[in-house]
């Protein structure tokens, strides 16, 4: 039976290549023209433990991986244990029965990987490619596509490509010749949908930084942000980027602050623990009005928490981070394409208003895969208040009197970096006058403090008018029985869940991507006519942080919150189930006895 959507799971121990195997399959499927979402889970262990890679592929746009797998590659026994609730009656298991013993009464295709490897004189390390070939044959990926995917995966490493291609072919051929007496999950023919790429959120962010013209990326490795560093370092020379791993997160933040003051776009990336160490510098950037950009890739806390899992627990910490009051931009992209665009937008905003910015992503977005339309080249890079050297020289010639912290109508001052002939510039972490010298004179200090905060008004207006801080999915909120609020990558599961829920309740989903300054007007506009709908926030945390934020900023009470704190992202069907259950309880209560 051919299906619209098929889901695969590849499970194995860390180091078994299960994630590589999954990634290659995802790539091949995308290449064929399917829409792809890929998710992975791995422990904080280099070898051993259990890792999983899920691929959901469809002939139409899909948003999130779900908890029903049609085909499972089981490279370890844990695959059965950990994912026992993710199988259905027709799930087909591909495995080598010499490695793992499947449970009784499941549909198994036994591929003697170890034997095949031995026969071919191949090393254990390429076993995952035999599996990938077998899967390709099972679900109908032509071998050619697998070869292409393998080439992409091991780019340039000729002998590795060669041996893995051979292994895939062996797996493919083996499967082609075994007789299977039950239906295999096969996809309907793809309907190719234009130029597209398979990306993780981190790759998209890295690409956004390249495009935005970032010149310095300094970072201290931390899961799940490190892949940005790894990616950028590889392309740094070609793209005029100084990419550095430094001694700690304080240094990373300070280096980009220095670089930003010296006139370039600069960024860093980290997770909660490292971000904590950057907070003092963030406040300094607020005072100095430096447009540094920090990617905060969230994982479950508190503290070390679960280092390789996903969460959305840091929203309010990010928004209120730093001592003293100062404007900043906090934005949370929802998918890979959005992440790329938001990086570019955020740099433009940061440099236009001379404010620091935080890009919040969760591990699920950071490391998950998605097929997205080819990222656009034609974007606007607007350096806002930054005056390049040549231009500064011209201005000075014309008699322009420069003050680094001049109070203007929008309260934004031009930024001329040091190094312009004849000009001396200053910056200061203490309260300062317009020239950048320390001051404690009361009215001057107030004026400068408020100068910085007044920018919020203009910043908010620009975000509300030029960008899309808030998006509505599904029916209009005024027509909905249920309005769900969400943010970040959780939107994806919510949208897929909406489809299920909509069968019972007309549902509207509101995603907020520009979280700070909060888009109050857009929010009021969208919610204007909501009266009797059940309102619910779905967030990957316990306390409902967006819900708190909405109430703080608008007074609007989102009545319920569905959270999750096991580090694993939401899956659409179980989310839908929870939502439906909740709405039933709510309605029951409403119509029940008035206790």
């Amino acid at each position: 039976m051919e299906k619209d959507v098929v889901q695969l799971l590849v499970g194995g121990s860390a180091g078994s290549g299960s994630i590589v195997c999954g990634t290659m399959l995802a790539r091949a499927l995308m290449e064929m023209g399917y829409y792809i979402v890929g998710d992975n889970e791995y422990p904080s262990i280099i070898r051993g433990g259990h890792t999983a890679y899920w691929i959901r592929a469809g002939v139409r746009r899909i948003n999130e991986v779900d908890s029903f797998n049609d085909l499972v590659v089981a490279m370890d026994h844990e695959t059965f244990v950990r994912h026992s609730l993710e199988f259905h009656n027709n799930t087909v298991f591909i495995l080598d029965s010499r490695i793992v013993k499947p449970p009784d009464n499941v549909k198994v295709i036994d591929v003697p990987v170890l034997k095949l490897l031995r026969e071919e004189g191949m090393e254990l390390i390429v076993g995952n490619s035999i599996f990938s070939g077998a899967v390709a044959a099972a679900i109908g990926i032509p071998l050619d596509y697998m070869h292409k995917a393998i080439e992409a995966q091991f780019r340039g490493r000729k002998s590795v490509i060669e041996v893995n291609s051979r292994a895939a072919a062996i797996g493919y051929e083996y499967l082609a010749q075994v007789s299977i007496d039950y239906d295999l999950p096969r996809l309907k023919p793809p309907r190719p949908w234009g130029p597209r790429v398979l990306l993780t959120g981190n790759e998209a962010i890295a690409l956004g930084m390249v495009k935005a013209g970032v010149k310095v990326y300094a970072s201290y490795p931390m899961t799940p942000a490190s892949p940005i560093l790894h990616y950028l370092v590889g392309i740094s020379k070609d793209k005029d980027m100084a990419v550095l791993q430094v001694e700690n997160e304080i240094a990373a933040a300070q280096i980009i602050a220095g670089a930003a003051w010296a006139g370039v776009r600069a960024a860093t990336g980290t997770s909660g623990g490292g971000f904590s160490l950057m907070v003092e510098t963030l406040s300094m950037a607020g005072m100095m009005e430096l447009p540094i950009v920090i990617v905060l890739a969230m994982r479950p806390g508190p503290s070390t928490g679960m280092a390789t899992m996903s969460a959305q627990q840091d929203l309010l910490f990010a928004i209120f981070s730093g001592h003293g009051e100062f404007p900043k931009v906090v934005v949370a992209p929802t998918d890979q394409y959005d992440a790329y665009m938001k990086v570019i937008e955020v740099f433009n905003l940061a440099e236009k208003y001379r404010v620091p910015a935080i890009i919040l992503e969760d591990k699920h977005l950071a490391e998950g895969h998605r097929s997205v339309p080819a990222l656009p080249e034609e974007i606007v890079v607007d350096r806002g208040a930054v005056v390049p050297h040549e231009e500064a020289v011209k201005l000075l010639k014309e008699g322009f009197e420069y003050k680094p912290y001049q109070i203007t109508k929008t309260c934004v001052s031009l930024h001329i970096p040091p190094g312009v002939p004849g000009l001396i510039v200053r910056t200061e972490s203490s309260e300062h006058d317009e020239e950048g010298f320390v001051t404690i004179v009361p009215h001057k200090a107030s004026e400068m403090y408020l100068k910085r905060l007044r920018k919020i008004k203009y910043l908010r207006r620009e975000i509300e008018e030029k960008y899309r801080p808030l998006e509505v999915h599904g029916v209009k909120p005024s027509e909905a029985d249920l309005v769900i609020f969400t943010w970040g990558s959780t939107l994806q599961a919510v949208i897929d869940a909406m489809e299920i829920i909509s069968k019972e309740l007309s549902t509207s989903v509101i995603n907020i991507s520009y979280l700070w300054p909060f888009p109050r007007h857009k929010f009021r506009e969208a919610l204007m006519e909501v009266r009797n709908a059940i309102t619910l926030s779905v967030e990957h945390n316990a306390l409902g942080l967006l819900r708190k934020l909405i109430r703080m900023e608008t007074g609007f009470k989102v009545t319920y919150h569905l959270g999750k704190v096991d580090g694993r992202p939401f899956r659409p069907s179980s989310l839908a189930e929870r939502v439906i259950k909740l709405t039933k309880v709510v309605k029951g209560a409403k119509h029940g006895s008035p206790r």
Partner: protein
Amino acid sequence: MVVPVKQPMAVTKRTITWCPGCGNFSILSAFIDAVNDLGLEPWRVVVISGIGCSGKITNYMPFNGAHVIHGRVIPFAMGIKLVNPELVVAGFSGDGDAYAIGIEHLPHAIRRNIDVKLIVHNNKVFGLTTGQVSPTSDKGMITRTTPWGNVEEPINPIAMAISLGASFVARGFSGDIGHLKYLFKEALKHKGFSLIDVLQPCVTYDRVHTYQWYRERIYRLEDVGHDPTNFNEALKKSYEWGDSIPIGLFYRVRKPTFEEMLPTTSEGPPLVMRPISNRTIRDLLVKNHELTLD
């Protein structure tokens, strides 16, 4: 002191708020003189300072200035140098700034040999916060936070820097302004990370290490024919303290700097001068992500 102190005016037209007699004054004038002597254009010079009495110095110098936060002179300076190596970048720290809260950056700046000069106003005390113990306070020293006498051994920044492989290590003294200027000039001419630890009497909070105390003990390495290319000698000299205290250039060696080695910055114009409008991602999409065109 019921009579208000007369505070001098800096060239930047800001009142200098150091105590009268403070050792910081000579660091200020020696550095300005050094820059002028070398004929460096002021707009090409960037000075960065941390928080402390020492940190105020950037407000008083006629150069591009960044007064950053406590302990972070080195990384902020590094960010500047990296994107614009044509600037002359000098940092000013207190002993608390450089050796307490900011010490983590020192070994790494040394390993990188980034071309930043770090001048430490070493007054053996936290001045601005009113006289607490510092990592360079002597053992037994009575300070506001060690009323019973300091129980920790002082750090030896010269020995530390030399042993970690720093390419320029010197010690100056606020009471010998000519020599200080000489050291600053040498440092400014040196390519690579430079540490100049300056013995700077705090006339308010340290009644022991006065100008007089130092004068009785100090001698110039230059006067005894010390060879600053001799690593072992330098290290040995760095442990000399007490009755005779060497000042001068302990060690100097030319090594490639970070900027010279990093692939991105080793050639081409300063990063800040390179255009960004022409940045493309298409090549990356094609090469790294197998852009699929239907």
